[in-house]
């Protein structure tokens, strides 16, 4: 089986800095990691490979040249091949433009049975790229996958809902987006680290993937970041003191009434 896992490099901190003019993230100087949900997506692909050793896993990302570090992590975990879409023309893409570029990259890869992506990235939190990609490639998709099984032919997944789950059976090729409940991603084995550092990472520019330049990059992106800001921290909470549970409850009720909550 041939699996493509779409991954994203995200900043590894809560103190992300934002470009005051463009309203986009400043990535320089901030340590980057493999996006959490994408690690779950890769782990599930690796589990298929554990079971079916002839499985070939390609990790695909779009990003600046530094994204190679994250791809090396993916190779160390056990992916077979890594491809980076990197070009100034692709910079500043929103989800629509990103999925155009990734779809073009996947078309260039050509042969695949299954695409895994993370549900969403911790920097943008949109959860749009996976579904957009499936639409653009004309593939059936299931989002929020929390359980996965494969019998060698068909795929059965559980899709998480707010109040339960759906059991869905589907055939390949298809696209699935993973959530953290799906699995616990493996650590990079030491041997994998040494091997990964010797592997070449394929880098494709916009021309290589034959993407329409009017459909990628900051200018082409229909989403405009109006303003990004760090929310003001909540003030200190109120601690209620009292002698007895009854006393505490009375004081709490009085406070809630005062604020017109009850």
């Amino acid at each position, binding site marked *: 089986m041939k699996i493509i896992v779409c991954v994203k490099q995200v900043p590894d901190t809560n103190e992300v800095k934002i470009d005051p003019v463009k309203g986009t993230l400043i990535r320089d100087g901030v340590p980057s990691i493999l996006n959490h949900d994408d690690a779950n997506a890769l782990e599930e692909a690796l589990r298929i490979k554990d079971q079916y050793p002839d499985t070939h896993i390609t990790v695909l990302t779009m990003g600046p040249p530094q994204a190679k570090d994250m791809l*090396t*992590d993916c190779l*160390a975990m056990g992916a077979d091949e890594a491809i980076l879409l990197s070009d100034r023309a692709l910079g500043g893409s929103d989800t629509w433009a990103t999925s155009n570029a990734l779809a073009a990259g996947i078309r260039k890869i050509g042969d695949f049975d299954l695409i895994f992506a993370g549900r969403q990235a911790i920097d943008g939190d949109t959860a749009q790229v996976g579904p957009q990609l499936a639409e653009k490639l004309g593939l059936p998709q299931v989002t929020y996958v929390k359980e996965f099984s494969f019998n060698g032919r068909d795929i059965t997944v559980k899709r998480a809902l707010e109040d339960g789950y759906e059991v869905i059976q589907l055939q390949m090729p298809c696209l699935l987006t993973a959530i953290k409940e799906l699995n616990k991603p493996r*650590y*990079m*084995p*030491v*041997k994998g*680290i*040494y091997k*990964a*550092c010797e592997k070449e990472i394929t880098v494709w520019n916009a021309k290589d993937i034959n993407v329409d330049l009017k459909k990628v990059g900051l200018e082409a992106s229909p989403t405009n970041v109006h303003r990004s800001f760090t929310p003001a921290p909540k003030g200190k909470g109120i601690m209620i003191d009292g002698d007895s549970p009854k006393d505490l409850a009375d004081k709490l009720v009085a406070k809630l009434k005062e604020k017109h909550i009850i």
Partner: protein
Amino acid sequence: MNFSPTKQQEMVRRMVREFAVNEVQPIAEEIDAEARFPQETIDKAGPLGLMGMPFPEEYGGAGADYVAYVMAIEELSKVCGSTGVIIQTHCALCAWPIMTYGTEEQKKKYLPDLLTGKKVGAFGLTEPNAGSDAAGIQTRAVDMGDHWRLNGTKIFISSGGVADTYVVMAMTDKSKGTKGITAFIIEKGMKGFSIGKKENKMGIRGSLAAELVFEDCIVPKENLLGELGKGFKVAMSALDVGRLGIAAQALGIAQGAFDQTVAYMKSRKQFGKPLHKFQALAFEMAEMATRIEGSRLLLYKAADRRQKGLPSTVEAAQAKLSCSETAMYVTTKAVQFHGGYGYIKDYPVERMMRDAKITEIYEGTSEVMKMVISGDIFK
């Protein structure tokens, strides 16, 4: 001169740090309190290659370099000194001498299971009357024609009882002193080999130490490791590697206690301000940070020399001396800066101070390190 880690070393450090925080730290307090060997950690560490880092893949090793190896021991020891020493003893004192002095048959028989963590290794040199003075060992091995017969007792053996494979030193010719010592590979379950007293230790309580008892123990001829009468060299060269591991363990304990203290000093307020705003304390932290970093450079240099195949006995002794004394100094201050909270078991610095002490003692005391270093100066 290059002070930057390689990409591989950085990745190993990052992976082990994550592993240590997620898998080792949560049980560190418990294995200390219960003096319990963390088998579950070994089971997880094996498949990741942590039980056989600086060994060739051919025998099941991870093919890593020695700098990455000491970084891994350091990261583990930052959260749990017991786990650090279990893995270092296994690698340096059991797998390493088998790798270095073993026959092809011995390597193929023992290394794959050891280096993947399916089996745990240990090392037996110390005896009641032979500590730093290894020449005084009384365990005797007698050639019985088709086998060796061992009699004697080893004490304070790390992972004793838990381990499956032991590299043990025995006297084959008392008249020759250290040149009469020979190394043997002993397996759990060999007839006449049993585990005696289990020690109740001050620190590194998750790393069990026990007595090894040999009563007419029958050891097959093919289990002689290296050459007859060359056991002292086997032991001393293994201890050179072991000292890198102990230095790394000590460095990790020091760094772990330091990090805990930084966090505590930022949050703990007295006299209306956080502790780090008191310059006397902040300056002391500067001193600690400098000693930790200096020790780290000595250690990485020694590990790098070993990796490059350069002589590293003196460098390893200097690294061990500096790292272990720094660990004791830093952890003692860490407890002090935590005040009363430092003395109770709710904060990890109490455990770290107990764990630090042994690093000045085992695999060569600080005094023995000074013998090695001064011996080189005045040779």
